[in-house]
């Protein structure tokens, strides 16, 4: 029953996301992702992973799990239902002091089970004027732990204009989700160099301005 409601809720979310944003994906020339991947994306809205989830073909969508903060999603019954049952999120404990499990371990385990991940390397939502915040080191540690996994940069455009911080009525605007070339940790690549390379790869996908000034 719970699973059935979750499935229904997921369909409603998909329909709603499409109705509001008419979202469309731009795939990298190498085509649809074929292997287990970590999609790492810019993060400015709660709806970010929903958009990635929406544009992925059902075959890939079934296997993809967003990585999210346990502190946020386990706050109430409703959020934990949405996080766990509807989106099947990999919940990690962000707070160093309180955590029992290492986030990288948790994510690596999900990858080992055959899932792909949606990951936001900025660590939190970007509510500044900067296009992209500096990355935390999580992506590097994940790449070190599972070097064979494809790391795919994904740029989500316009969603921050659909629902800016502090607003609760979405403005229907067309959003695009752009997938870049899969990347890997080079042998012997240092943490800073890798993080910088990943940051640049993601930023390179951001569109030349067509609309919006914020």
């Amino acid at each position, binding site marked *: 029953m719970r699973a059935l409601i979750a499935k229904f809720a997921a369909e409603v979310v998909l329909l709603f996301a499409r109705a509001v944003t*008419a979202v*469309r994906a731009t795939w990298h020339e190498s085509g649809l992702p074929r292997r287990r991947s970590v999609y790492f994306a810019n993060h400015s809205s709660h709806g970010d992973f929903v958009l990635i989830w929406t544009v992925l073909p059902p075959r890939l969508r079934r296997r993809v799990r967003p990585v999210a903060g346990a502190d946020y999603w386990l706050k109430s019954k409703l959020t934990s239902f949405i996080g766990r049952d509807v989106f099947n999120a990999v919940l990690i404990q962000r707070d160093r002091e309180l955590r029992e499990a290492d986030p990288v371990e948790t994510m690596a385990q999900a990858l080992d089970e055959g899932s792909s991940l949606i990951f936001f390397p900025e660590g939190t939502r970007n509510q500044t004027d900067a296009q992209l915040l500096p990355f935390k080191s999580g992506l590097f540690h994940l790449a070190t732990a599972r070097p064979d996994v494809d790391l795919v940069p994904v740029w989500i455009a*316009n969603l921050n*204009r659909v629902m*800016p911080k502090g*607003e609760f*009525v979405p*403005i*229907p*605007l*067309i959003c695009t989700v752009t997938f870049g070339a899969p990347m890997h940790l080079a042998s012997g690549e240092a943490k800073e160099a890798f993080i910088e390379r990943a940051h640049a790869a993601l930023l390179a996908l951001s569109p*030349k*301005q*067509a*609309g*919006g*000034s*914020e």
Partner: protein
Amino acid sequence: MSATQYDMFLLVLGIFGVLLVASLVGYVLQRRLSPDGSNAAIENLNSRINAWWVMAILIAIAFVAGRIGVLILFAFCSFAALREFVTLTNTRRADHWALATAFFVVLPVQYFLLWTEDYGIFSIFIPVYAFLLMPIIAVMRGDTQHFLIRISEVQWALMICVFCASHVPALLTLHIPGYEGRNVLLIAFLVIVVQLSDVLQYVWGKLFGRTKIAPNLSPSKTVEGFVGGVASATLIGAGLWWITPFTPIQAGVMALVITLMGFFGGLVMSAIKRDRGVKDWGNLIEGHGGLIDRLDSVVFSAPIFFHLTRYWWAA
């Protein structure tokens, strides 16, 4: 079968016949000249033909569903067009409520007014009330940067996507003596003439096009295509007089006005796209651009066609 139903049946048969021939020609061309999908012109032609099929089928369904069907169809078109338009504008955070009002208040109210057939308020609701309301809502946030530009953009988005587009279904509200119950054919007349004019300009331009009309705006528009397209669409419009309240000559003049407005509408909308640095308005019709790309000429001709018809023919 009443006379109206008979005419409608004839028209639908004609349209589907033309589309069938177009699809066949497109298929043969594709097999002969572009088997691997490499000829852009032919691929584009085929995608246009497919878009017309969808357009014709949707309009046919809406017609069968009656007035409410037509209203819902065009309300959806307005919504999708407004979404494409606003996506390309300079919105700022301070515009949030003005934009929300445009989408969730102004648009539904405009179509509701159409439903009530109250022309007095329908015709001024957007140009008077919405135009004054938009800056009032936006000014509340106190953000003055690019204020005039931001407000004009929202106003123009509403003008094009809601006000102008709603004049297509508004044709249903006209009371023309001796033409009762046939108004839906006026919509068909408008859409057929505009779309044929677009196609014929394209075909004439491909065949004889030498002189570019507006190279900065639209490299594919030529004087030869324009003259040939307008002339032939006008003739076809005159030949469709039997579905309108007009005489053949009047129908021809109306078709001429429609095609001219449609042509310049296309130019204006290209200018906006150029300014925003995009090729298409959106991606609603997968791979073939957005809804506005297909509706730009209809949108410009609809209010004028509506008004001329109302002024001279309606009671």
